[in-house]
């Protein structure tokens, strides 16, 4: 077992909490379910219980290309059909995921990073515009997570790049979901 298993467990726990507390927000539920699935596969992989690296990588990619934009849509267009109805949240997810798969098939690896970065930046700008401190902090935490992961920041031998991603993502999701529950979503 390494640090990644511990931080992935933390992320998994947060996604379960956010998922169970967002009954009225299908888009939030779908996006945290994908993050949660990736985290669960990470736990299984890094504890050595059931290593499925390809599936872990698939769900991580799906998280970047489809779950991040869906998360952004949840908060930026909170009154939209995408944020409020299962049907449209699913369609949004399938289409975003399809683009991610096409990019993956064409070896356009940057696509996932770009989509995640744009989504989180849009979330941050939105949070600042509506002057919601909690949402802004949540989006900032997600942005820090992506930047630290992309720059391969590490604290050897204790923390690896993936650890920062997991911890800051967990923090960001927790803060954002608090914002959703405050808004009654």
């Amino acid at each position, binding site marked *: 077992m390494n640090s990644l298993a511990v931080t992935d467990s933390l992320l998994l726990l947060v996604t379960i909490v956010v998922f169970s507390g967002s009954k009225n927000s299908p888009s939030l539920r779908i996006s945290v379910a994908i993050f949660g699935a990736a985290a669960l596969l990470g736990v299984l992989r890094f504890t050595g219980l059931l290593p499925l690296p*390809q*599936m872990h990588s698939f769900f991580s990619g799906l998280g970047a290309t489809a779950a991040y934009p869906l998360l952004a849509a949840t908060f930026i267009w909170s009154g*939209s059909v995408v944020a409020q109805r299962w*049907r*449209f949240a699913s369609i949004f997810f399938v289409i975003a*995921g*399809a683009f991610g*798969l096409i990019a*993956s*098939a064409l070896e356009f690896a940057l696509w996932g990073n770009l989509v995640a970065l744009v989504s989180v930046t849009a979330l941050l700008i939105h949070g600042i515009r509506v002057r919601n401190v909690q949402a802004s902090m949540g989006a900032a935490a997600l942005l820090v997570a992506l930047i630290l992961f992309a720059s391969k920041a590490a604290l050897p031998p204790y923390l690896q790049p993936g650890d920062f991603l997991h911890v800051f993502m967990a923090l960001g999701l927790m803060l954002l979901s608090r914002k959703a529950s405050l808004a009654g979503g």
Partner: protein
Amino acid sequence: MPEFVLSPNILVVPILIVLIVLEFGLSRLMGRSVYSFQDSITSINIGIMSQFVNATGAVISAFMYAVIEMKYGTFEWNLASPVTWIFALLLYDFMYYWVHRTGHEVNMFWAAHITHHSSDEFNFSTALRQASTGFYFKWVFYMPLAVLGIPVQVFVVVGLIDLLYQVWVHTRLVGRLGWVEYVLVTPSNHRVHHGKNDYCIDKNYGGIFCTWDRLFGTYADERVEEPIVYGLKKKLHSWNPVWSNLHYWSEMFKKAGEQDNWRNKLMCFFAEPAWSADGNSAPKPLAQFPATDDFFASRTPLRVKLSGLAMTLFSVGLLVFYLGSKQSMSAGLQIFCATAAVCSFAFVGYFWTQGNKKELQR
């Protein structure tokens, strides 16, 4: 001259022809009329055209599947084990249920699938009336099989089994089949799927197993007391194979163009087919649509019938040649052949429809 290879989809062609001839003959023996000449000719030509287009479109699906399976395929599967095939077929059929349901319940996917429902008849030729514009979205739904590592050859074979199974359920000559109705898709429960009676709308999406419909609440039994009326509520009024594929796209874009905001424009593509901007999204009851129809009731002129028959025989030959030779053709030549086929169907289809309309005006 391109090299000719006898592929499995070529072998299917004579089987389908024999099935249609058998159903036609049997219906005559039973004193029933389940075929109308021009409708069947149009169905067969729509099927041939879809094969021209999808033979190239399917390459995209297979390519996407193969790449994703190679990159993310998680488990190793033993091709010699029946478990592999049974599991793959079950999972494929489950995903088919969602592809099919999406094809009915999301407008821009219904625009592709509507072609299959545009016949007023229900027979083996209706099974061939497949869309030429559906390949662009279907592949996404089958990606879970790729991620599980099901090999591409298994995916292709179970896909073919699922497709071929669905041919025989397009008939009015087979009644209810007892306990089978609880497990499999049968002619009886598939008739409901093709009906435009109010109780038939958005029901029975299954491919091989109707279990998915029963699980997700979309199953409906055929009602003996209420004869099924087949086809679209708003009739197509065309024998043109190309227009039958494009008419709904045209309507959808026109409707989106008429909306005054982006939300509603997007809803025209992603909402359910019955969606309207005034908030009345419930499907209109069948009673609101005219029961009789001059276009379909009118006598098809002999010259239209003869040209229909000639075109069908010619295009079957051309399709067999195309399917057998396309492996040795460049991608450019394949696209050229498919485009040429679509153009000739558009031309001949226009002639058929005009022929019927002139007959109507007499």
